[in-house]
């Protein structure tokens, strides 16, 4: 594996990690909001 390939893999992995992190954070906020709303029902 060339250094360029290694660099590309690292770059993509980082991009995916950020994307997964953002999705998880979104779900945390969404579930919190849903819980608060449904508790009021």
């Amino acid at each position: 594996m060339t250094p360029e390939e290694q660099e590309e893999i690292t770059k993509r992995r980082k991009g995916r990690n950020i994307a997964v992190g953002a999705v998880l954070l979104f779900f945390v906020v969404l579930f919190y909001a849903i819980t608060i709303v449904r508790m009021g029902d």
Partner: protein
Amino acid sequence: MQQANPTSTQALPADWRDFFALTKPRVMTLVIFTGLCGLLAAPGSIHPVIGFTAIFCIAIGAGGAAALNQWWEADLDAGMKRTSARPLPAGRMQRTDARDFGILLSAASVGVMGLAVGWLAAGILAVSIVYYAVVYTIWLKPRTPQNIVIGGGAGAFPPMIGWIAVTGDITLMPVLLFAIIFMWTPPHFWALALFVQSDYAKVGIPMMPVVKGEASTRKQIFVYSVLLVPLAATPWFIGGTTAVYGITALALSLMFLALAIPVSFRRSVEGDTMKPEKRLFAFSIIYLFALFTALVADRLAFYQGFIA
């Protein structure tokens, strides 16, 4: 998770943008619009957070179904110019990754919908995903020239799910919204199929103009367009909306029919510019947006007391 192993020859991990592309974001905008209209037009009220969650789940479910569709059709997509640059046929992603991603999105959308909104809406969302990914994509699309009619059923689910998210029960109105999109899809798509040179035939998908010929396709466009006129106005006839929607629906549908008639009763010639077909297709998109906007406007005007 794949491990970073410097000695292996494994493919590069797929870019997150390719996973995003797998959900067909452009189709999703139409799904979100019609789903939102169903939600806003339904009687009763829904908390904005729950309403947002319902639309979000409809969109994620559509994305999951789209990913499963591309997982199954990767070989077909590779053989067609329009689709050959998609993540799977272009080799930017593992097939199994697309499958697992599709299943994850589908399951998550149904689960969240059930917990946050209601299990009836979740159940119908599940039916719509299975209908698109299995009944349409895997089973019937490669087997019958009626595939567009069947596929139209999949596209007709979002407003129905949006409505049921609010009401929690299935009444005639959400079924009518389903029926309207169902009836609209064949003339919409076949108008496009008449003027776009597609290579569906090359990969063995039996599209109507190829199997039954142009003349038969045109005749069928006419039949669906005629049926759409009374159907689109039925919500008014049964008292589900006021005349604001009813008159708009009749006017729009008659215009649709007026544009469909020249398409239905002509034959293309060598070097045809296909103007009537292009006009019908362009209007069909405006038609759907205008019709659903009218439905929501009708409901809002009624609630605000502008009309009795």
